[in-house]
């Protein structure tokens, strides 16, 4: 744990000063700050543009392409527009809570970045309860959302807030149960520990370790979608029923905060899944300088996360919103029991194969490849049937 910034700072403050480590600690701190400012905040904004372009292509449209090259600066234009708008606080609203709520939501989006394992060294604090911290902090969103819903003094907001609370708390359970299989196999809660237990080859990722992990990874992905109020679980802000749900009364920058947190949480949700089941930053070992290796690891991590974020956009462009009772039934009737089966199954699996089973890993990897192949065949079928002109270029 020498690489951990918290450890280093702790030693510097309370123990004998490790002079040889202070430079390293400072370097890591600066790198993390750069990553936070260069990735966390812009990501949440730029992803709005990416998402709109992806939806547009899914609907055979073009999407925003006028502000900047291919509309890339659309997020900046939207941000400036929101900042310039009037910040309305309703007269009947509970003003202190109303003002506080967006900051709590943003807090729940900023704090998880502390344990975000970008690379083997690029982590702000490698807590030994990293994944637990992550789950606990992301659940803080519900406080902000419920606060926003209640303090707005508006029925739509209140229903939206209550729905959000019910949804986030419900889906915490399958999400937590789906974290267990990975934790059972490694015996650690540290983010770096979970990644170090995996290898760079895809078939050594935990998602392919056994069938239970495969299902658990899928449940974790869907549950995080639900926790982030993403379609098909965007009931708290269902436009057709609740105007904008808990954000109905918000305007200007406060409104933007909610949505920045929502889009930023996509990154965090994807990062959790990548860390637990998809090998994190693991890349093949080379005898290159640590800085270069860390850069490559960082890119590897980022690519995996962005692929998952893209899938989440793609799901949003595909599936309609589920009904509130369907949402609850998916969680309690399907995900929770299956989550328990996954947990117990993995526990038994680990008891029988403490070092994993190479045969099962290969079989699961082959199954995944088969699924991808079948999917590609299906896509080709629909493409052929439509007899439409194809256009692979991402920009138009």
């Amino acid at each position: 744990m020498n690489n951990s910034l918290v450890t280093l700072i702790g030693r510097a403050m309370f123990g004998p000063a490790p002079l040889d480590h202070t430079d390293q600690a400072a370097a890591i701190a600066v790198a993390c700050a750069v990553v936070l400012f260069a990735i966390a905040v812009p990501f949440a904004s730029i992803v709005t543009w990416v998402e709109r372009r992806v939806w547009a292509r899914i609907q055979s449209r073009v999407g925003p392409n006028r502000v900047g090259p291919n509309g890339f600066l659309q997020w900046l234009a939207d941000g400036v527009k929101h900042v310039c708008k009037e910040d309305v606080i309703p007269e009947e609203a509970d003003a202190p809570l109303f003002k506080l709520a967006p900051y709590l939501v943003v807090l729940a989006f900023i704090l998880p970045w502390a344990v975000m394992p970008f690379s083997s060294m690029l982590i702000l604090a490698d807590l030994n309860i990293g994944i637990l911290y992550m789950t606990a902090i992301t659940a803080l969103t519900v406080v902000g959302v419920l606060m926003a819903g209640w303090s707005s003094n508006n029925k739509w907001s209140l229903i939206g807030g209550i729905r959000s609370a019910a949804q986030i708390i419900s889906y915490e359970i399958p999400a937590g149960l789906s974290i267990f299989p990975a934790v059972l196999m490694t015996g650690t809660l540290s983010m770096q520990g979970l990644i170090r237990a995996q290898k760079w080859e895809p078939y050594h990722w935990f998602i392919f370790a056994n069938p239970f992990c495969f299902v658990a990874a899928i449940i974790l992905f869907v549950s995080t979608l639900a926790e982030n109020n993403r379609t098909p679980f965007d009931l708290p802000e269902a436009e057709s029923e609740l105007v904008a749900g808990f954000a109905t009364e918000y305007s200007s920058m406060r409104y933007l905060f909610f949505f920045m947190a929502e889009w930023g949480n996509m990154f965090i949700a994807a990062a959790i899944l990548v860390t637990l089941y998809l090998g994190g930053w693991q890349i093949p070992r080379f005898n290159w300088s640590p800085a270069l290796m860390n850069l490559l690891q960082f890119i590897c991590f980022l690519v995996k996360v962005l692929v998952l974020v893209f899938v989440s956009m793609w799901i949003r462009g595909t599936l309609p919103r589920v009904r509130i009772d369907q949402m609850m039934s998916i969680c309690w009737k399907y995900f929770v029991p299956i989550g328990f089966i996954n947990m117990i199954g993995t526990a038994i699996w680990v008891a029988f194969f403490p070092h994993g089973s190479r045969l099962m890993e290969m079989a699961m990897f082959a199954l995944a490849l088969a699924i991808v192949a079948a999917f590609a065949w299906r896509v080709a079928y629909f493409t052929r049937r439509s007899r439409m002109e194809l256009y692979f270029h991402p920009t138009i």
Partner: protein
Amino acid sequence: MGVAAYFRHIKEAVVTIFDGMAVTASHLIRKPYTIQYPDRIPARVQDRLPFRYRGILDVDLEICTGCLACDRACPIDCIAMAIEKNAQTREIIISQFDIDIAKCMYCGLCSEPCPTGAIHHTTEFEGADYSLESLIRRFVVEPVVAYKPKKGPEPDPAVASLLERGMKYVDQWAQPGSDKPPTPKAASSAQTATPQPAKPAANPARMPAKGAAAAAPKPSAAPARKGADGQAVTQSPPAEASVDNREATGEAANPAIDTAGVRQRDKTPAS
């Protein structure tokens, strides 16, 4: 819910989402339908519209005779015209010609009676502006002398080209359903409608309507019209009468009728 139903639900959810994702993925690689108007299209829409498209009105003041037929024909009074007549030179001076594009309903009734095709619809249709005031098109900057049809072909080539265009416009108006050049069939129908043998577009002398009526060897219908013109000085029949007349006689562009219209309108402002 039985165990079988439970697993069937799971299977259905997985299979349908799988297929749905495949459908959207196939859309993801298709070419978007969107036509990116107005700046990313191969050719301007205005250039591809037919000649007779009823877009925003325009006036070629060089060939406007100041007859006020358009002003009278407009059902919603969006044309404001003021003309004066110089008693010595018998010239008509147009001092105002405003068209309120905001009011205009693009009915085309103003360009129909125009003897020279001076007022005509363009293919332009983008009229968005920041103020209502700027939608009033003022064509007369300072008073101008109205066009007077010459005897024989038009000497000024610039005016001649305008006139040619205007007459083509008027002719096509008189032949509904043909925005193509007149075919022999159209000419034959013109012959059946009126006894004159001249093919409208083919006769260059016909272009200046009044001059053509006076100079060209007119068929039998023309003298009768001239006689009617003589009466028109006293009777002053409304311009609509000539419009109705043209519609009644069929699609053939009868230069005599145009002549009659121009002459009547010459008299009206003076009286």
